[in-house]
């Protein structure tokens, strides 16, 4: 029996090992490409064990060093962290397989460099999930930014360079200018940065200043892509699709909303927020982002661009859930991290499959292509239903809880926001399978999707259905998170 403290290391280290060994295997492509999925399996095993431990009421903790009074580098597994860690590590298996199929199918250059930084990004995301201290979280947040930069600029052409610069300046700039000072502010008034169960600010901060501190956090966490700091996400879509799928639908953006939820529940505390109304402005901003980006998504013809705007909108669901400061909404937000991840990664896998298989990237070109790639488009359809929130897909649970939470908190207009957004979701997501299956074919294309792409796509698609029936452990984690 392994002590639970070491489970954290077992979960966190495989991607780092993969990152360290990959550069030496550039000649042996098969071994190199196997490393990712194997690492994913080990990490997933560790993260599942951690989830069990947390559900048993334990709190695995590992401290490495203390930098200054109340500031240390270490890991603590909170319920929310266990949830996010599980999502990131399990989806890494599928994304690992998929990226092999994609990179080979697309004959991309520098595949070794790609795999190295890909694994490093996963490592950073897992460390964010288990961070036991706001400073540890910040450090890995930055490592995640830096490790994804070579992935975004992978094509190394002018467009990629430009996107990379935007990506770095927004993510790195916002975090250094706002997030770090906000963290220091918390340290100064509470004397500690440890992540605790409930909020730490109650009674320590003048409620008058609380909205400003929250504002520094919200705009400092650029990865959560709230307007007006969302521009980096569509720009990052120049990266190869496996990056967009795992990182810009799961690891990076989820690290952002994870941090956001952590700040809202564990730094401010739900009770403090609902008592002082410090997050009221955030409800408005998140609702605005949610609706606006849904509308923008309708006008995007590029599949990945549309999915990017859809991601921004879905991320706002999570931020909104945290900002509502009700326990049900927070649970819904936590569940949405899981269900949206499974759904959105499927959609991105499909986008990449269409690109590799038929060299198509615009929605208007998809008319009638459904018959040449039926499985792929069915996967897209099911993934879309999950995002929209139709039972029996996982996405229905999180939306259900979010709506209940909106009702509980008394902000009834938020329910209307959710409803309108669902209609918009239907409109912009279902257009794709509808075009593929029901429109007349315009041109004849021989589509050949590699098996290594089809299989993971179908698996994550299956996962979205499974989530509907096996939501209980996640729900338990979410309720542990709000202290029930």
């Amino acid at each position, binding site marked *: 029996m392994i002590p639970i403290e070491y489970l954290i290391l077992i979960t966190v280290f495989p991607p780092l090992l993969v990152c360290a060994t990959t550069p030496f295997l550039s000649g042996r492509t098969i071994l190199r490409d196997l490393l990712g999925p194997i690492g994913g399996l080990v990490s997933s095993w560790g993260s599942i064990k951690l989830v069990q431990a947390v559900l048993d009421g334990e709190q695995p903790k590992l401290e490495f*060093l*203390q*930098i*200054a009074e109340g*500031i240390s*580098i270490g890991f603590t597994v909170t319920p929310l962290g266990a949830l996010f860690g599980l999502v990131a590590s399990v989806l890494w298996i599928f994304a690992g397989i998929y990226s092999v199929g994609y990179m080979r199918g697309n004959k991309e250059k520098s595949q070794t460099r790609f795999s190295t930084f890909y694994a490093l990004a996963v490592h950073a995301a897992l460390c964010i999930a288990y961070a036991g201290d706001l*400073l540890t979280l*910040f*450090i890995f947040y*930055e490592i995640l930014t830096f490790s994804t930069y070579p992935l975004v600029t992978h094509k190394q052409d002018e467009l990629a*360079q430009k996107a990379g610069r935007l990506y770095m300046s927004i993510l790195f*700039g916002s975090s*250094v*200018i706002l997030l*770090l*000072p906000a963290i*220091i*502010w918390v*340290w*100064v*008034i509470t004397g500690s940065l440890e992540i605790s169960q409930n909020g730490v600010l109650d009674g320590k901060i003048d409620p008058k200043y609380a909205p400003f501190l929250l504002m520094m956090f919200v705009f400092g966490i650029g990865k959560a892509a709230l307007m007006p700091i969302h521009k980096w996400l569509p720009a990052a879509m120049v990266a190869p699709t496996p990056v967009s799928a795992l990182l810009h639908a799961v690891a990076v953006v989820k690290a952002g909303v994870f941090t956001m939820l952590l700040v809202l529940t564990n730094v401010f505390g739900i009770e403090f927020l609902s008592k002082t109304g410090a997050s009221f402005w955030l409800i408005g901003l998140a609702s605005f982002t949610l609706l606006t980006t849904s509308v923008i998504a309708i006008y995007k013809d590029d599949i990945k661009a549309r999915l990017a705007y859809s991601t921004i909108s879905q991320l706002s669901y999570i931020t909104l859930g945290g900002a509502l400061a009700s326990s049900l909404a927070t649970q819904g937000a936590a569940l949405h991290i899981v269900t949206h991840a499974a759904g959105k990664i499927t959609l991105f896998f499909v986008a990449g499959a269409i690109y590799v298989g038929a060299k198509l990237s615009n929605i208007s070109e998809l008319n009638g292509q459904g018959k040449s790639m039926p499985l792929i488009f069915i996967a897209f359809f099911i993934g879309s239903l999950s995002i929209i929130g139709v039972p029996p897909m996982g996405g229905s649970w999180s939306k259900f809880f979010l709506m209940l939470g909106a009702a509980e908190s008394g902000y009834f207009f938020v329910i209307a926001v959710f409803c309108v957004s669902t209609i918009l979701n239907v409109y912009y997501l279902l257009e794709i399978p509808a075009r593929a299956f029901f429109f007349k074919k315009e041109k004849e294309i021989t589509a050949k999707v590699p098996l290594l792409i089809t299989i993971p796509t179908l698996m994550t698609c299956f996962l979205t259905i499974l989530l509907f029936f096996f939501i209980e452990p996640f729900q338990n984690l979410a309720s542990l998170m709000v202290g029930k």
Partner: protein
Amino acid sequence: MTDILIKNLPILVVLCPLMMSLFVVLISNAFISWILTLLTTVLTFILSILLFQEVQIQTYISYALGNWAPPLGIEYVIDKVSIIPIIIISSISLLSTIFSYKLMPFEVGQSSISKVYSLWLLAIAGLIGLVTTGDAFNLFVFLEISSLASVALVAMGAKKDKQALVAAYNYLVIGAVGATLYVIGVGLLYSITGTLNMEDLSNRLKEIDNNRALIAGFGFMITGIMVKAAVFPLHIWLPRAYSYAPSAVSVLLAATATKASLYILARILFSIFNISDDLIIITLNYVILPLSILAMFAGTIMAIYEKDIKRLLAHSSIAQIGYITLAFSIGSKASIAAGFIHMFNHALIKGGLFMAITSIGYYLQKRVTINNLSGLGRQMPITFFCFILCSLSLAGLPLTAGFISKLYLIKATISSEGIWIVFLILFSSALSLIYLWKMIEALWLHENIKKIIINENPYIYISLLIITFLNIYFGLDASLIVNSSEGAANTLMGFSK
């Protein structure tokens, strides 16, 4: 044996470089003179470490020069305050001596090596003497020794670039004005108290009501020291002197010279005079505080628009000195401790950055500007790596020493003054990201047009690696610096009560 050694440590640490400097000048062989210099700095470093340990036990070591008991005779004092600049000076001088091995012959010529090292040791002796002495007039003597030696060292850069002579002349004239102002101040205080010993001075000043001579004396002293410490707007000698001096000299001066003067500034403000005095409060709030804030912004903005990298770093030093004086100007125990923390960390940061940039200059064989940095990062991975880490430290990112400075500075500022100062600190440090990014971008992302092949020299990068390691180490475990700085602040504030 050890007793005698410990008793004489305060004087030994000054005498060791001073005597050796006289000896080194006689040696004609370049290599031997370097070895002797190295041994001297090693010895000085060991002595200062011994002093550090001793101070932890005794807290106060006094040495009466020539056995003339203070306050009549000259007293050398090592306490928890003065040990900090001593450690900074001795460690940086050791590292930069190692660093200078390859660069010095290349820049000043083989024939004048022994003269340079003689001046080098003299400057170090002057700086250490400056912080060890407990006598206000003896301080002036060391101030002159160190400045004259530094001026001559800066002028040595003339072999490469004649501009160094202008820079040295500027430094000489402005430095002399500063020293003169200081000595006038000392004279005025002597006229009303009749003593030169700092502790005695402090005791007697308490009994005297504010009169014109006292105010004038204080004003002269402070202004003189502010010139030496390059507090904005009295900094004009600094960018030129740092950028045209030979590489190793830039490193030594940037990391140590202003630190010693800043220490004197703190001594005058908080231990000779009394912090609760109206005169000091007014000076802190209406002179030093606004000047520090101006320095933070002026230095950073000048650095953003600067193309020459050595000058850019010099401008950034002015901003960083602004942070230190800002910490002093708040005048609480926590803030003075923060000032000392940053004093130490900034020596590590600027030392590292200057080492990286000047070694790039050595490889390139010309002045380093933003344009000819293009793509060099890939040619010299080690230097570039160290440069990045030191830059991150300057920007105050977590896991580096700079972060600790920022943390304690902000903590001290929030708990005493208004939040607006914190915002100014954060804003100016965010601005500093601009010039750091500019350099990193040029080094890494721009295309290398000329395709120069560079072999990194271990003699050059070894000290760079050490100083970078220290930047990271003290970012991970800050307890040593934080504790000794808090000890310094306590001693400093306790002195006057």
